[in-house]
């Protein structure tokens, strides 16, 4: 079901906002996926009752004014909502109740959306499997025992398992696209600066982006359009106030004029498994059959992306997470109160971080420390420019780049937990878009022999978000029958 169909049902009085909200709340409460960390049932029911009053008064859904009217969403627990616990899946913020609402959520709610609750994730968004949550891992929505991907694993599982209609995730190195690919939903990381990050707990500020996770591309466009645009409270947002994303997304692409770049480095040399490769090749053939021109492009610095990322992201994280001091917010344990000095106090307070977070803070502190800064942080930023230059060059030859999201499909829980480097290398196809600030999305394009979903990644130049969505939507509409078969086969 799409948002437009739910709105039709509201108009025809075959469904009320309260009913749909209650249905999702019941599913969320009964679910064994561990996708939700907090369910705000009373708050959601209040919102739903108020929406039904509007519906009764207006006679039909005020689509223009409230494009997300009555749509039940859930939010990655990294974005604040005033009065609702925000944990970042960390013991450090177990009881943190923020005094303000993030702009992204505020805009969704101002457009009529209902908020069901907050979703599980890797602690402070650090991880690719959702095994790093202080509140336990998230279960894969269709394949028990497998990871849903991370760090927005709760956001992907909740959409796929129909525990919410759509969700918000965040993407620093692939954290929306990877779980979208693993779980078989649509996930988009918009252009850097497109959506305000006011109220987003910062991980790596030059990389983080908020984005939608949905069942359909059309609905991703609807959420994105509502959230996109300048926010005076976030100086890193675009100066542009509004983007006509939905209308662009709904257009049929001009196939004969479309050049799709195929990066030569995103191949089996990058560890791509044959099943994923086959699904991607099949997708490319479809684009070609529509009249698009496939153009080989080269992104020669791709092989450095993971190295750059794990210097830049951890350096920024070590700085951002220094605010977790146990004074202004967060949990202060008894030991901290007994500490002999300030350094000891901080050390006791900060013992609440999980192992992956500690590892990254240590690595980041190391990369920024005197004597190592030039060799690590500065050099990483220099090579980061070369990665961006690669894309600038490629986009003189093509309009959109098509690639896999990940080398493989979802893996079993525990499989990569003891080898952080192997886990990091899993992000090689998603990290480059973050380094260059590009919009990138994952749309389901098939399944492997076990029925595990495969995602096709589309990337474009900055601010080509609408165009990416239009290409993805055309692909999705043509393939929705196959993907549905693959997924239902997997569940049986």
């Amino acid at each position, binding site marked *: 079901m799409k948002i437009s169909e739910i709105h039709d049902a509201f108009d025809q009085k075959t469904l009320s906002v309260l009913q749909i909200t209650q249905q999702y709340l019941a599913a969320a409460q009964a679910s064994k996926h561990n996708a939700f960390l907090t369910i705000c049932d009373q708050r959601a029911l209040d919102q739903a009752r108020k929406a039904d009053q509007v519906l009764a008064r207006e006679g039909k859904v005020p689509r223009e004014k409230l494009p997300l009217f009555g749509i039940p969403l859930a939010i990655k627990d990294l974005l604040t909502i005033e009065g609702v616990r925000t944990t970042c899946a960390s013991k450090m913020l177990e009881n943190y*109740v*923020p*005094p*303000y609402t993030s702009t992204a959520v505020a805009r969704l709610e101002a457009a009529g959306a209902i908020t069901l609750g907050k979703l599980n994730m890797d602690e402070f968004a650090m991880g690719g499997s959702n095994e790093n949550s202080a509140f336990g891992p998230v279960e894969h929505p269709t394949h028990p025992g497998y990871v849903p991907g991370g760090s927005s694993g709760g956001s992907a599982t909740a959409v796929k398992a129909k525990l919410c209609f759509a969700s918000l995730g965040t993407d620093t190195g692939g954290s929306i696209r990877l779980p979208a690919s693993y779980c078989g939903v649509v996930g988009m990381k918009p252009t*850097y600066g497109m959506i305000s990050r006011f109220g987003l707990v910062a991980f790596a*500020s030059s*990389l983080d982006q908020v984005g939608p996770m949905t069942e359909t591309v059309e609905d991703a466009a609807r959420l994105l359009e509502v959230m996109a645009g300048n926010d*005076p409270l976030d*100086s*890193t947002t675009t100066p542009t106030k509004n983007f006509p994303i939905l209308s662009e997304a709904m257009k049929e692409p001009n196939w004969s004029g479309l050049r799709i770049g195929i990066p030569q480095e995103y191949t089996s040399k990058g560890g791509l498994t044959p099943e994923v490769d086959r699904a991607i090749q099949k997708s490319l053939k479809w684009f070609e059959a529509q009249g698009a021109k496939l153009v080989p492009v080269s992104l020669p610095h791709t*092989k*450095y992306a*993971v*190295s*750059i990322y794990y*210097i830049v992201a951890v350096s920024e994280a*070590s700085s951002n997470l*220094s605010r977790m001091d146990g*004074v*202004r*917010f*967060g*949990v*202060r344990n008894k030991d*901290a*109160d007994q*500490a002999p*000095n*300030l*350094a000891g*106090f*901080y050390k006791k307070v*900060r*013992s609440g971080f999980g192992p992956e977070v*500690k*590892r990254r*803070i*240590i*690595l*980041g*502190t*190391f990369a920024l*420390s005197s*004597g190592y800064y030039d*060799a*690590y942080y500065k*050099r*990483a*930023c*220099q090579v*980061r420019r*070369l990665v*961006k230059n690669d894309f600038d060059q490629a986009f003189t030859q093509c309009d959109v780049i098509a690639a896999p999201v990940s080398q493989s499909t979802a893996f079993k829980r525990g499989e990569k937990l003891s080898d*952080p*480097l192997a886990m990091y290398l899993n992000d090689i196809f998603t990290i480059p878009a*973050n380094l*260059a*600030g*590009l919009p990138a999305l994952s749309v389901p394009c098939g399944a492997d022999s076990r029925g595990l979903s495969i995602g096709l990644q589309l990337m474009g130049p*900055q601010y080509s978000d609408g165009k990416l969505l239009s290409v993805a939507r055309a692909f999705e509409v043509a393939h929705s029958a196959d993907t549905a078969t693959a997924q239902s086969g997997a569940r049986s």
Partner: protein
Amino acid sequence: MSQAPGKIDEDLTRKVAELARLEVSDAEVKLFTSQLGDILSYITQLSEVDVGTGDREIQPLIQPIELSTPLRQDVARAFGVDEQGNPRVMKSAPEVMDGGYQVPPVL
């Protein structure tokens, strides 16, 4: 690179953890030292990239978009204030006293 990368030992892990105000157990020091060693030796690949020198040195890319510094009017506005006019932000603190953050005597 100016320093020998990939040579991280337990003393360095302890030193960096101290700088980051993190308490690490002996077992964690051992584990992190080996894992960070793996990661850093992978990262040494960056040293093979020619980043130029002098005028031809590649400028670091610190953030992916060209940003101006937008300014706004310097006007105070109410933010997160409860019914009594107290800032709600204080409610998030582990301990407060007389409108201020309370910390143990550590100096």
